[in-house]
């Protein structure tokens, strides 16, 4: 490894500093700090309405989420002023929790878009991946139109494979996914985050939102953050934190913050 790459490893791939965000005049993120190093897989816990999705959408650049103050630094650049598509082309990808259905745009159309704009993936490998995700029959369906909860997750992951982003955000990839499919979902996340190779060789990083933590049975996470009321209340070992939340709820995290 050369020295410039070495140096790259010391600075986070993405860093959120003192981020405050409002949507529809309502404050949803408050002075939030968080970072993700290249090669890392981070988990984000937090109760309903704590602002997890808002954080991901803000990072992706959805304009309704207005940055009031703070910075979003990606590869050393503050990207807060950049449009959604610019961020996508810079290497940011988002698995939406509730993506809209787009009538008339078929799954295969959007996969082609993802490939053209970002990915190094080939048409054949998409078919292969679709096969892996048990999703070949959906290619001619309008994207997300009438998809079941589990199907939406697989469609989103397939799009990520085609787009091949460097920083992948997963908004509840395990919610509503059955036991057979969660295994597939886990495999694809591992593939996207290059979990098969040594951490210091990886070029990717990921941020995964999960409530029950099922996905952690399939994907190894390095660190976890807990969000409460729009900011990070604590961070630490994903297994320990999950155990805490399972037994004591978010009480511990509230105390942790104090």
């Amino acid at each position, binding site marked *: 490894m050369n020295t410039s790459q070495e140096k790259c490893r010391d600075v986070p791939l993405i860093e959120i500093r003192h981020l405050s965000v409002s949507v529809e005049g309502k404050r949803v993120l408050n002075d939030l700090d968080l970072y993700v190093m290249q090669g890392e897989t981070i988990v984000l816990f937090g109760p309903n309405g704590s602002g997890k999705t808002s954080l991901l959408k803000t990072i992706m650049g959805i304009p309704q989420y207005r940055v009031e103050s703070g910075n979003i630094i990606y590869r050393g650049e503050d990207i807060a002023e950049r449009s959604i598509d610019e961020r996508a082309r810079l290497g940011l990808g988002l698995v939406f929790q509730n993506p809209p259905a787009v009538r*008339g*745009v078929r799954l295969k159309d959007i996969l082609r878009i993802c490939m053209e704009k970002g990915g190094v993936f080939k048409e054949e490998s998409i078919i292969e991946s679709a096969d892996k995700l048990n999703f070949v029959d959906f290619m001619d369906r309008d994207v997300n139109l009438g998809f079941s909860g589990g199907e939406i997750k697989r469609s989103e992951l397939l799009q990520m494979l085609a787009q091949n982003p460097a920083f992948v955000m997963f908004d509840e990839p395990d919610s509503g996914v059955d036991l057979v499919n969660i295994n597939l979902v886990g495999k694809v996340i591992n593939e996207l985050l290059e979990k098969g190779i040594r951490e210091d060789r990886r070029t990717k990083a990921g941020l995964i939102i999960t409530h029950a933590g099922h996905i952690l049975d399939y994907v190894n996470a390095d660190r976890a953050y807990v969000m409460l009321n729009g900011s990070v209340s604590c961070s630490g070992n994903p297994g320990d934190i999950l155990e805490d939340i399972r037994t004591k709820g978010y009480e511990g995290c509230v105390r942790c913050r104090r």
Partner: protein
Amino acid sequence: MPKVTVKEKAKNAERKPAAIGPDIDLSEYSLQADDHGEIQKLTGLTDEVRERAITVGIDAEESCRSGSFFQMDHSVILAATNQSGLEVMSTTEALKKYEWLTDYWWKAVQVDADKYTARAELQQHHGYFLRALPGAKAEFPLQACLYMGREGMAQHVHNIIIAEEGSELHIITGCTTAQSVKSGLHVGISEFYIKKNAKVTFTMIHNWAENVAVRPRTGTIVEENGVFMSNYICMRPVKTLQMYPAAYCIGENATVRYNTILSAPEGSKMDVGSKVCLRAKGSRAEVVARAISKGGAIVTRGNLIGEVPGIKAHLECRGLILSERGSILAIPELDGRVSGVEMSHEAAVGKIAEEEIQYLMARGLTSDEATAAIVRGFLDIEIKGLPEHLRREIKKAVEMGEKEERIL
């Protein structure tokens, strides 16, 4: 009481305004036209004419066509078919050739419906006669082009299409003007007769100009097990276009499908509907419309009339308003006259959801690209049972319309 003749009925309706649409002063348009002679093949068209004809789906090479009809202003310059069992000629000639044709003349459209039907009877300028003999199946589509090359001119055509028992016809009709023509009037009467077990697909593409007024009047009679499928595409400017074709399912299990794709630029008024009367058990109808306003005013209508039990029909209309000044009025009507009918409709008019644009942007498309992709998807209606090359012509016309309007 003495029987009123067709001509008398027309005379009486000469001043009768149409039920819908802005009234047109017919005296504004000239009835003069030059004689354009005849050509042997469409390759004999001038480059200018050919280029315009291609925009409305005409295949100038005639390689994938079973026959061609070309009318320029008031002259039929070509009428020919290369498949036996099919007939292509002007209706004036057909009237001379077949005495029985009067049994089909003004039987699917009323001659005194309004001043436009009356005008077409009193001042008819040909039109096409297309017929498939019993059991004949067209290998390729028949194509017909109605071309207006003279500024300020009126063209009144009367078309008759007959699919005899067990036959199959695919027709593509393109109507357009010369590039230089800005204003004119086109009145087109079309009467379709689909006999028992016959099938007709009719694809019509219009490419008019800013000041052209268009009044098609169409009626279709579908007998037992007959299938009529009509696709209409107008993606280009027109001053005023009003049509409300009607199909009558009079035989058991008759099937009618209408697909309409409209895009109205600023200044264009389009009022287009589809009506189906289901009069026999087991008949089916499906009406689908997609309308885009880029500043123009669109009225999209649908009317399903269920007159007997055991019929099934569905109406779907979606409109997208892409400009502040645009408007779309969707008027879906379901008219069930007995119990035991199954009719439904869905209609939606609005703008593109911001959320959908953002979603595609998150995959790397710019805002404009995302909008275009959604519009393209919106206009891409699935048309079943149409030969592949006609599907391609529709796609081509839609894409061309989309592209040109963006430049404007």
